[in-house]
């Protein structure tokens, strides 16, 4: 018994001494540079489960690739990534963002895909002042009435791609009247507004607006209406599973060949496999697509495919650009995130050399970027031309943005 006690005491003592020694050593080594070298904390609030999970992963991958290309550091500081799965659930959004901001005390928040979740996040970061980069969610008010100096978007606004298609259609002499069909929720309404703004400004006429409650997919009755009205084209806003079903139904109703189908890029992105050819020839507009033959894009696609064994998509590009946007800000202040004004000014004036092409930040912190016209050919959304060069956001939203500093 005595011997056991002695051995035990010896072991505890050495263990204590050892850890004390280790602690002192670490302190001695790191103390002089501690203030400068503390890692910058990036909180990723993205969907890692559910329908949008692949999008969340693509954004994270893109960000990591962009970070790696900058030497794994932003403004000379190492980066620590904290992840939260937002499940694309607006009900849990406030708790999740509060965890990152209050408990984990992150310096920057990157998120998210779902517009409803993003709206809840913005409400918190506007209060806390935490720097936020939105890598997808296209809801209009974020770069409008809800804009704030610390909130940036590296993707798009829903209005933009709709407007680009409107301009493109107005320029085509054969297309005199168009029917729109969309889910009746914020993204659908913003996209249709964009299309209407672009199309009617160029002299086009909206024959009819058809709406479905989100996310229902019983299209048959509305397709019959479209066939009866015989417009020159149909502008549709759907995404994901709903888009796949719409494209199939449109094709099976025999409308694909008689009434051209057009829409924002989300109509055909990521679902072409599921449509089995029913989307062939459908034209869409977006800030990215297949076959952009710039050296930057080629290098990006190669590096991404090599690192992650996956093909990059528009979501990966937004994640990638987010890393560069943050990098531009951090570089200007040499890693000192407390120099907030300079950091934000540098991000505002950043010109991002992106795989999608060069883009800059608008006054309301939304990308001013080229929008491409794309056509579904096989399993690709092939870029055929540029629909609108360096397109800014909805003027109404820009006017509504009062950047209180």
């Amino acid at each position, binding site marked *: 018994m005595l011997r056991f006690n002695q051995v035990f005491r010896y072991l505890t003592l050495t263990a204590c001494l050892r850890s004390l020694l280790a602690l002192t050593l670490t302190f001695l080594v790191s103390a002089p540079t501690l203030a400068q070298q503390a890692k910058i904390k990036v909180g990723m609030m993205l969907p890692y*489960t*559910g*329908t949008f*999970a*692949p999008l969340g992963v693509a954004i994270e991958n893109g960000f990591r690739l962009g970070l790696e290309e900058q030497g794994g550091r932003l403004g000379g500081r190492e980066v620590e990534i904290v992840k939260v799965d937002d499940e694309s659930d607006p009900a849990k959004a406030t708790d999740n963002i509060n965890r990152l901001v209050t408990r984990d005390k992150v310096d920057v928040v990157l998120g998210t895909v779902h517009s409803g979740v993003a709206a809840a996040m913005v409400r918190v970061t506007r209060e806390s002042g935490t720097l936020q980069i939105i890598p997808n969610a296209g809801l209009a008010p974020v770069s409008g009435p809800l804009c704030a100096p610390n909130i940036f978007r590296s993707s798009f606004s829903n209005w933009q791609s709709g407007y680009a298609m409107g301009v493109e259609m107005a320029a085509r002499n054969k297309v005199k009247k168009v029917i729109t069909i969309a889910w*009746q929720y914020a993204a659908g309404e913003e996209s249709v507004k964009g299309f209407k703004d672009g199309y009617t400004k160029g002299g086009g006429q909206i024959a009819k607006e*058809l*709406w*479905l*409650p989100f*996310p*229902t*997919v*019983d299209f*048959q*009755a*509305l*397709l*019959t*209406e479209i*066939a*009866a009205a*015989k417009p020159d084209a149909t502008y549709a806003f759907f995404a*994901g*599973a709903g888009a*796949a*079903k719409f494209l*199939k*139904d449109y094709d*099976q*109703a*025999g*409308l694909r060949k*008689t*009434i051209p189908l057009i829409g924002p890029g989300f109509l055909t992105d990521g*679902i072409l*496999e*599921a*449509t*089995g050819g029913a989307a062939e020839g459908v034209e869409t507009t977006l800030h990215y697509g297949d076959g952009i033959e710039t050296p930057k894009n080629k290098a990006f696609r190669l590096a991404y495919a090599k690192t992650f064994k996956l093909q990059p998509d528009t979501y990966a590009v937004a994640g990638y650009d987010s890393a560069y946007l943050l990098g531009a800000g951090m570089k200007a202040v040499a890693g000192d995130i407390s120099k907030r004004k300079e950091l934000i000014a540098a991000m505002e004036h950043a010109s991002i050399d992106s795989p999608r092409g060069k883009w800059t930040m608008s006054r309301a912190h939304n990308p001013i970027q080229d929008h491409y016209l794309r056509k579904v050919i096989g399993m690709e959304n092939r870029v055929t031309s540029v629909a609108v060069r360096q397109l800014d956001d909805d003027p109404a939203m820009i006017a509504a943005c009062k950047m209180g500093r």
Partner: protein
Amino acid sequence: MDFPTFLIQLLNSVQYALLLFLIASGLTLVFGIMGIINVAHGSFYMIGAYLAWSLTALTGHFWTALLIGTVLSVLLGFALEWLVIRYLYGRDLLYQVLLTYGLILVFEEVRSLLWGDDVRGVDIPGALASSLRLTDNLSYPVYRLAISVLCLALAAAMYWLIQKTRVGMMIRAGSANRQMVQSLGINVALLYRCVFALGVALAALAGMIAAPVSSVFPGMGNHVLIVCFVVVVIGGMGSIKGALIASLLIGLVDTFGKVLHLEIAGIHLLPELSSMSIYLLMAVILLWRPEGLFGAPGR
């Protein structure tokens, strides 16, 4: 709306209604005979669709997939009744809803593990892949018509099974008085197991035949489930005939609610409020007949 368009919309509503009936009949059957509210019914619809997708990919043949899928879903029904559902007989409604709700989560997770979260598509089987030309620019897929025919055939078969056969007689008796039927030497436990398996198979079959015109995606059963409950409530809980009539009513109201324009005193009612139309219909019918159209009063 001109007359041909009206006829086509009528066809749309009937087509939608019949598929709805196929799913809802299983739900109402299980409730009417076993007294179980099965919230997981929509999941069977989703499982059916995913089975159609994976089995078609595996066998390369849609009809083979349909056959194997039906057998698998009957087996699933048997297993579920034996594992879970049989503990629910005679229990409070809350237990039934909680447990079957739990099943939804289990099925979604299993689906995610087995088949992933991607959107999938199933090709229309070759023989039915053509379209009928209805107007100068509108075609109607033959497959959609085939679905309606199949649904009608299944409805007739179900009517025959329950009203005209000995098994049907036992099922009806078992729902009226379980103890009495048991004391007559009929194995009620087995009977119930068969009814539940039938319910599962009906929903899964609906999912399988709907897979080519719909697409296959996570959570596809949830929307269907809600509409099915509306059908069952309007038709009267447990009544197959009621489910058929209610499906047709909902098909009509839903379809025409979307395409008609109605404006009263300058306020747009349709199609702006079309998403509410079927629930308004339900409310009106319940005010008039609280037990539903063909429901047994005092249930």
